[in-house]
């Protein structure tokens, strides 16, 4: 190495793999930094004591029993979509169409509730709703997969564009089913009869969703790590050629995995429409289809870690929105804070894989 040349202040080198606690310490540190920067920004804007800012973040997530439930409900839905996209990601199939697959699932659920609401007994209606949502999501997910398998189209663009088609489809049907005519929104479906609404467990509105997602999470963990399908997905993800060589039918795995991915997204959409919201809007997914990509990545595609990463994101989002409400700031302020937090969390992944060598340490090392 040319010692006379100007040595940069620092250079970046790849780390040896960190033990799990090391990686999580870096993530924890990033979160801490994010909190400090958020408090700093908020204090600058509002002149408030940073500690009360933290208090508010916590207040927004756990301030009351209801808020805690909402937190876990949001966590459950986000986790559900994250789980849905994960098998595809493990296969190196970049499914960023979670949004659209969810919307289609929701659309199917709304269609059943609106069109069959007074024609079927409630238990049958719920069965039909669940089945058709899963089918709708699965089909929406399988379309790009078939194209990928047959003609090797780019799945990233394809799934992305399918999102917009889904949004327009939903917008169309909202106009078809709008109440009252001309209002441009559906309102709460079957508000008086509650037909097709998923049953409430005890007096806990969100409990069913949370349990369903917990079960999906456990199943997904087993499916990905302990089944033949899961193994095939991993092999296809590592190398398609190897997969072909050892006799895996790659096309079949791609389509099958995307059917699963879409189906679970459909479940998420159904949980929203039939479970809690009982309506359909083009914004019902709240961008979770995209956030899920991040949740899944941050957790390194591990379903159990995803519980934690989705908790982190939902917790911070709820806290940030509470800050903007309490201090009378525009709701965009919540987006700024969420942005700061995500910046740090994603940035921390860089420091898990790489290390910065400052100038003097660099010399010593050499």
């Amino acid at each position: 190495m040319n010692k006379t040349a100007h040595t940069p202040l620092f250079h970046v080198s790849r780390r040896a793999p960190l033990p799990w606690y090391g990686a999580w310490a870096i993530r924890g540190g990033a979160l801490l930094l994010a909190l400090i920067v958020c408090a700093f920004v908020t204090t600058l804007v509002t002149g408030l004591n940073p500690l009360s800012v933290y208090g508010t973040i916590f207040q927004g997530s756990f301030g009351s029993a209801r808020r805690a439930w909402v937190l876990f409900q949001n966590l459950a839905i986000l986790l559900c979509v994250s789980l849905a996209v994960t098998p595809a990601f493990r296969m190196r199939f970049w499914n960023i169409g979670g949004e659209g697959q969810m919307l289609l699932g929701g659309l199917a659920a709304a269609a059943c509730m609106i069109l069959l609401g007074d024609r079927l007994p409630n238990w049958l209606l719920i069965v039909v709703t669940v089945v058709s949502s899963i089918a709708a999501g699965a089909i929406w997910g399988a379309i790009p997969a078939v194209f990928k398998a047959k003609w090797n189209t780019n799945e990233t663009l394809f799934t992305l564009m399918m999102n917009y088609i889904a949004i327009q489809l939903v917008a169309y049907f909202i106009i078809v089913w709008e109440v009252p005519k001309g209002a441009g929104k559906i309102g709460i479906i079957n508000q008086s009869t509650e037909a097709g609404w998923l049953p409430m467990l005890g007096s806990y509105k969100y409990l069913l969703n949370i349990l369903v997602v917990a079960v999906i999470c456990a199943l997904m963990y087993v499916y990905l790590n302990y089944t033949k399908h899961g193994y095939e997905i991993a092999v296809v993800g590592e190398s398609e050629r190897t997969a072909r060589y050892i006799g895996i039918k790659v096309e079949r795995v791609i389509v099958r995995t995307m059917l699963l991915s879409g189906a679970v997204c459909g479940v998420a959409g159904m949980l929203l429409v039939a479970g809690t919201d009982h309506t359909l809007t083009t914004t019902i997914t709240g961008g979770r289809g995209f956030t899920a990509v991040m949740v899944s990545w941050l957790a390194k595609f591990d379903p159990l870690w995803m519980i934690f990463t989705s908790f982190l994101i939902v917790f911070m989002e709820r806290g940030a929105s509470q800050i903007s409400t309490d201090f009378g700031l525009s709701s965009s302020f919540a987006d700024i804070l969420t942005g700061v937090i995500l910046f740090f969390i994603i940035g921390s992944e860089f420091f898990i894989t790489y290390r910065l060598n400052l100038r003097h340490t660099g010399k010593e090392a050499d």
Partner: protein
Amino acid sequence: MKKLLALLLALCMVFALCACGGGSNTAAPETESAEPAAAPETEAAEAEEPAAEAEEPAEAGEPAAEAEEPAAEAETPAEPVDVKVGFICLHDEQSTYDLNFMNAATEACEAMGVPYVIKTNIPEGQECYEAAMDLIDDGCNIIFADSFGHEDYMIQAAKECPEVQFCHATGTKAHTEGLDNYHNAFAAIFDGRYLAGIAAGMKLSEMIANGEITADQAKIGYVGAFTYAEVISGYTSFFLGARSVCPSATMEVTFTGSWYDLALEQEGAQKLIDDGCVLISQHADSLGAPSVCESNGVPNVSYNGSTIEAGPNTYIVSSRINWAPYYEYMITCVQNGQPIDADWTGDLATGSVELLEVNEAVAAEGTTEAIAEAVAAIEAGELHVFDTAAFTVNGETLDSYMADVDTDPAYTPDTEAIADGWFHESEYRSAPYFDLMIDGIELLDTAF
């Protein structure tokens, strides 16, 4: 390793701090929410006493606003119920519609010394229910939502929280829902639209008199959001106002399918101008139409508030609903433990319907006087905006029309709205139900 440990410990501390901070805060809303539940009962008990006493009626002659004072002086030291109002807005201050609500909220709450919280950008979905419940967790005992599509979610929240009062602007269901704590409010804004229409008609007449356009070219353009009664009632009353001054006026209406979409509203206004409209008005909430009017030099009659900054050379006048009187009403009711009307309709007399100052630089001469004259006629009950003699439907004058006042999924017409020679708008419920397609107005697209 030590560094890592230190980091972890620091993290633990932060969370511990959060936990402490959160814990103490949670207690507050709970106790607060307990109060309003208990207080109305004691208030109600008291309310009967003053009525029985002989001294009270002597003071009853005083204006209603002062009625609180005697109640406060009563022997038991029960003060007016503490009120905290939560406002839910569809958009933020960028939208002229929401800005109008937010300004009134600030004005009314600060004048009455009542704490309030405003939540902006709450979509017309489950988010509205969440926002309402969240505001209740923060100790609010009056929740107000400003957009039509919030209604179902407000009702859902109202059912779950009987001790909290829910007030909703532009909604239609309160009078049939049968909930004690859910209320609708609106104003007879068709009066205001009609007055704004007079300003438009004056401008058209002036343009004809100046030879800028012929009488046949007096075509108004109107950018609407959706095709339901609130918008139809708005553009029809505006048109009738204009035609009362300029008989040859016609109108074209286009719809955007959104309450706030700058690009679509600009496109819509431009389309109307290209189509030969010589004056534009709108019922959509961005500055899209006013800004396009300004760049095209086409006069604009606005809504919700003055848009003179977006169009100093084209803005004529704006009508708006002033929500402060309603806010004061609902806050006073809750403070005194009185019920709020299921349907409240403001008008010129309550100060709810307002016509802002005329921009003399653009408006035709004599506009202010003509408006003042019409105001006097409306207040005297001589002038009715939806006078059946003033419009025809398919060439015929109507003497009967069943309106859909009680909302149901099949839109069953249920109430006779025409009597005494005019359409009784906003009488059987506060929200508009005039949805007739009158002659002289052409709808360009009705996709929404």
